């Protein structure tokens, strides 16, 4: 499983990098970015899903 942020949808609400700072960071404008290639392990999947469930813009995608 991999997590990604759609940069066209992200508005920099900042929820992802607050909830899961190990998975998400931010760029110089404050928009969310995935750290590394976004590959999720069993223990990080739930965290990524929590970030996804809190993104007001629905900009986070978790895919096979």
């Amino acid at each position, binding site marked *: 499983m991999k997590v990604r942020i759609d940069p066209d949808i992200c508005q920099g609400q900042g929820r992802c990098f607050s909830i899961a700072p190990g998975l998400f960071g931010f760029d110089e404008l*404050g928009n969310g970015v995935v750290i590394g290639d976004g590959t999720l392990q069993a223990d990080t999947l739930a965290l990524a899903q929590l970030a996804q469930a809190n993104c007001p813009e629905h900009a986070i995608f978790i895919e096979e």
Partner: protein
Amino acid sequence: MTIKEPVEDFATDWDHTDPRWVRDPYPIWATLRETCPVAHTDRYGGGWFPTTHEMVSSIANDTEHFTSRMVVVTNNKFPPNFIPAPMGGAPPITSDPPFHAIARRLILPAFAPGPVNALEPQIRSLCRKHLDAMAGHEFVDAGTGYAQFIPPGVIAQMLGFPAEDEDIFREIVHFILDLVDLAPEERGEMSEPTLNYFSNQIDDHLANPRDDLTSYLLNVEVGGKKLAREHVTGTIVLILVAGIDTTWSAIGAALWHLAQHPSDLARLVSEPELMPLAVEEFLRFYAPVTMARLVNDDYEFFGCPMKKDDWVLLGFPAANRDPEVFERADTFIIDREVNRHAAFGLGIHRCVGSNLARLELRVALEEFIVRFPTFTLANDADVTWAPGQVRGPRQIPIRVLS
């Protein structure tokens, strides 16, 4: 200012300055959401108030049918000094695409998490300074003695304005956000001192450039050209107004809540790791900011015949109470884990200062409850609420128990 007719039916005659709405809007919104759900008014030159999260999100993301050129509902839809779209009077909040992205990009870096998080120590010491002044008193005011001081100090420093002008800032905010019932000519006259204040600050920064946001905006170039002075003025007005009343309201509402919910207060004191979740729930439950749009051209929205230049009151706080999106929407749950609230708006106009607002709210609450681990509301009847589109308690008389 004329005395207004009281509202009899919020569905056909809404007024967001009505005393009942100001005091407790949530039951009004819940009824409208269940029965209406888009309210209309002929006041302020005509406008609409959609109450569901779906509608609010749809409008926030629809810059084609709804313009941001005016975002505060007043009787003055077309002021004489009006700056038209795409820039509007206070870019980027009053800007439409494509100009909006240019104006927004200029200020986003200053409000990104890096620079904002660096402000934490000084926000903390600002909070402690005002808590020191309250020490030893049994009865204190968490609004006029605390919440109202935190955001102005931070914003003054970012803009490079004199910290001792705080009272002027609050007057400006009051004029722009609260006095929305003024006749157009009154509003025009009253805007002069405000504009003069900003003009003097800009002149001072031109004569004495320094390392702050004002000097940055005066020097930054877009496409090889410096910004128009009206652009700089508008952005500074925006940062000052949007950066003060909003977070002040959020801090005040959170303290007002804690003063009445001892179990929530006790949990926050004993489980400080809950603070990030609590902050998001305070933002959802007491979201201070309602925005506005104007309808670009005649447009049918969810069956409503909206006319060109009708107001649309964009109720993010109402969206945050929509039971379609939030479980037990009208219940405050301090450790709510899934909380997709829209307190900072949705879409391209997401609050630029959201990282700063969160930081100020968290630090202000942390410091307050460390200093006063138990306190209670002295008298709810003495609590006053700011009217209009930024709603929050102004006087919050509390009794310190420990």
